[in-house]
Each structure stands twice: as C-alpha cells, then as structure tokens.
C-alpha cells in the first residue's frame, strides 16, 4: 500500500522556511490553492519568493507582508475590477522586487526546472523591457546552428524556475497524491509540482483511488503520487477563485477589493477572514454569503 500522505495545513506550513521560493498553481483567479495561501499568510514564515500566474494568491501574500520577490507574467483577478489591490500597493510602495516576464516565459522556466536543465531558449522577451526587469539576471544565448541564410538566432535563455515548494489545488484526489481536475483547463499544476522539491496538494474531495479513477476520464488524472508529498483535504479551498465544482465568488472578490481601500475595512476583513483557521474561514464565508442574500431580498 503506497504511503498515506493526508496532512493538515499546519503540517505543510511547518515544513516551510523563511526565504523559500514557492510556486503557486492555477491561473489568475482560477483554481488557486487558496487554503494553503491563507495558511501561509497567517503563518510566521516570511521573506518569500513567489512564482505564479498571479491573482489574489500573490495579493493576499503581499497583504500579509510575506513577499520579498515575485516572478510572474501578470497579476489579474480575471473579472472587474481586474487589478489586485494588494499587489498594486506592494508595487507602488516599492515593497517587493519583481522579475516580470512574458507569460510563456513562466512555463518555459518551469519546464527547464522540471527537466533539470539550467535554461531553455525562447523568443519571448527579446526587444521588450523584460530584460530590464531582471536587472542582469536574464541572459541571452546564441544558437549553435546558423539559419539557412547564414544569420544566427539570439534567444532569451530562460533560467530554470526551481521551486522549494509548490502549492496546487485539484478538484479530487486520493490519499497518495493521485489527483484530477474536473474543470476545462489543467493550467500548469503538474509543471509546478515537477519543478519543486516539496509538492503540496489541496483538494476539494478526498476519495479512494478506485473512486478517483472511476470519477473522471483517465486523461483528467493530472497528478500522480510520485509528484506529490502531502495531500490536504480542503473543501471549497480555492474560494474565492473558481475550481471544477464551483464558480468564482465574484461578490466576495469585489468585497476583498473594496475592503483593501480602507484601513478600517481591511482590519475588519482580516479579523473575520484571514486571522482565522480554514474551518472558521469557510464558516464565515457561508455566513457572509447568507447576509448578502438577505440584503438582496
């Protein structure tokens, strides 16, 4: 019987150290491992480097003052008002150092790390200010193979984005780390795990291996157990981003943005939703949603 990897959020956070590089799966405000992100935000781990197709994951970590450096192609909430308020504040206050890049470069860097290569060549980035963002850390490479016309291609040498830890959210999983997505897009979650030393999976549904493989077409089994170290059962854990079985909580996302505009409102938001454990968070979200329904009537 393969190892049972079921764990708590605290088990995961207990393995993290100051200064680590954390890769966060999903895309924008889509299937983000928010239960793990919330747990990290309320921990005492700090000075982190974050690699992400960014959304409120990076925003919440910026709000908590956890981020020293961020590697990303974009940061977006994917729906109005689009810009994450805490990432914006961290940037405009000059609080974080960023290595902004083309979206395709993020994939390329994770692929290099997954294949244990120092870099992979890519066109994206040439001619743009991406090179300036990297302040000398991003190099180019000349092809050893000349083109038919005798010229030689010079390309971006995208460095491997090696991760100390990866956080991903999959819709269902077994106790060993086999996992499937039920939505329309796998995003890059398997690649984040392949690029990381320690791989942490949160899941809405924890099921037996037998149920897992019968629940979805086999092509949806994105992760297998050799690429996962710990499995945390976190129903609705991706909230307020969307996952396979639930939509994005647009009203709550707007509430998050509105709360960030005012210090008192943010203090109240933090006290109710961020300085609490995951169970309390989910209970408070349900209560908040009920309040919204009553207000709407």
């Amino acid at each position, binding site marked *: 019987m393969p190892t049972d990897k079921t764990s708590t959020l605290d088990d995961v956070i207990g393995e993290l150290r100051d200064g680590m590089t954390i890769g966060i799966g999903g895309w924008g405000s889509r299937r983000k491992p928010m239960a793990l992100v919330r747990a990290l935000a309320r921990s005492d781990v700090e000075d982190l480097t974050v690699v992400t197709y960014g959304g409120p994951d990076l925003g919440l970590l910026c709000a908590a003052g956890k981020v020293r450096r961020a590697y990303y192609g974009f940061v977006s909430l994917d729906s109005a008002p689009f810009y994450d308020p805490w990432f914006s504040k961290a940037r405009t206050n000059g609080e974080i150092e960023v290595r902004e890049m*083309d979206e*395709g470069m993020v*994939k390329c860097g994770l692929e290099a790390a997954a294949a244990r290569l120092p870099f992979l060549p890519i066109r994206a980035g040439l*001619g743009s200010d991406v090179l300036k963002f990297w302040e000398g850390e991003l190099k180019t490479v000349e092809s050893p193979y000349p083109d038919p016309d005798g010229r030689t291609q010079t390309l971006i040498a995208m460095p491997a984005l090696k991760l100390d830890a990866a956080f991903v959210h999959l819709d269902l999983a077994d106790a060993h780390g086999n996992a499937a997505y039920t939505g329309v897009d796998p995003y890059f979650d398997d690649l984040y795990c392949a690029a990381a030393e320690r791989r942490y999976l949160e899941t809405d549904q924890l099921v037996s291996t037998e149920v897992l493989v019968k629940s979805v077409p086999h092509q949806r089994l994105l992760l297998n157990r050799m690429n996962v170290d710990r499995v945390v059962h976190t129903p609705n854990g991706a909230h307020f981003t969307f996952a396979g079985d639930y939509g994005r909580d647009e009203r709550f996302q707007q509430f998050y943005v509105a709360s960030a505009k005012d210090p008192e409102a943010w203090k109240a938001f933090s006290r109710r939703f961020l300085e609490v454990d995951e169970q309390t968070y989910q209970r408070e979200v349900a209560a908040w949603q009920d309040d919204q329904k009553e207000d709407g009537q």
Partner: protein
Amino acid sequence: MSTAETQAPESTEAATRAEYCVVSCAEIFRGAGEIMASPMSPVALLGARLARLTFEPDLLITDGEALILADTPPIGKTGAIEGWMPFRKVFDVVASGRRHVVMGANQIDRHGNQNLSAFGPLQHPTRQMFGVRGAPGNTINHATSYWVGRHSSRVFGESVDIVSGVGYDKVDPDNPAFDDLNIHRVVTNLGVFDFGGPDHTMRALSLHPGVTAEEVAENTGFEVAGLADAPETRQPTAEELSLIRDVLDPKGIRNREVK
C-alpha cells in the same frame, strides 16, 4: 458584398462610430486564413466574429476560457464547440505563429511599442496594471494588432514607460528571431493605422466619418504619417450592419467601448 452595399443604403448611412470600429477590427483579419484569432475586448471580439461570418470563415475563435467555438455565437454567449485550447496549448500556438492577437494598450508610441504593465519606474511604479502579460511573446512570434477605444495623447505618447509589446525600433535585423514581428493594425475610435510610415512609424490608413486630421493630430503625442491624405474608413455593408445589430451584439455592448 457589392450587392449588399447597393441594397440598403439607408441602413449604411445609419452606421454608428462603434459599428465602423467593429468593421475596422474585422478588417484586421482579412486574409488571415486558418489561424487563431485572439481579441481581448468586446469591439475587437465582435470584429473577429464578424470577419468569421463574412470573409474569413476559417478563423478559429475561442470562448475566452479553453474551448474552440464551432459556431459564431453573439458576444457573451457560447455555443457548439470544435476543440480544446487550454492556456498551455495557447503558448504552443503563440510559438507556432498561427495566431493574430488584438490587444489593448495603456500606451503606444510611434514605433509600435506598447505598454500594459505599469506606469513609472520598473521596480517602483506610480500605477500598476496587469504586467507585461503575453505581449512580449505575442509581438515577437505572430501578427499583433491593437484596439484603443479612446484615442488620446495619453495613450499615443512620445514613449512608453514599460515596453511590453515590442515595436519596430527594437528589431535587430541581424537576429532572425525578430523576423516575424508584425504590428499589423491599430484601430481606434478615430481611425485605422499601421506602421507603414517612415522607418516603420505610425501611419494613418483611414479616418472614421466625421473625424478630421486635426482631431487625430491633437489627440496624438507624435506626428502621424499620411494623416492629410487618409481616406474615410470604408462603410459597413448592409449585411455587416445586420450581423452586428441583430446577430452578434443585439444588446449594444459595442456602445460601451465607443461613445
């Protein structure tokens, strides 16, 4: 098409500025063939769908998530699908060159450099937007056009703060990796432009009816080539107007982007 033009002149006369913009965005895709059209905002999206319903039937369009649409549904609606295009595959298409993206822009300069990242210094901006997104990879790999709903000298300025989309002055002719740079069109609420001016600078191809060369000059922070000679943007045909109004955008979402 010429038949349609002669059939209903009264509905052509009634074409709004927004409808000229939609047709101008459709024209971006003329001759594109069997590639993926990736419009990023409503008017550009309507343009892509209009092109597919008229002169570019082989265009591939997606639902904005990960599905390729078999039909050409109205804006905001999905329909039958013909394929799967998750984000990971989008990057493969970008690298293959079989794509034409229509992006927005917070800034564009006369060489076609575009910014959608942030305003101000790189590590300490005064205003944060999305980041460079796919702009560096799009521009260096395949045809790229821009749609700007509010043409102003704030958008079209002397230079851009952060080069996200690459312009023609960045091209290294000795490096073949730049050979596919193709900033095809800029469509705005005032007219249609390309980079066929001196040294690949911005040039007016046409101005929408009611727009003067002076108005464009006043709202652009650099000299635009060909402005004095620019003809009027071609009229939407009766078929195009009917497709825009009755099929693709019955709710008039186009009017939110263009006043």
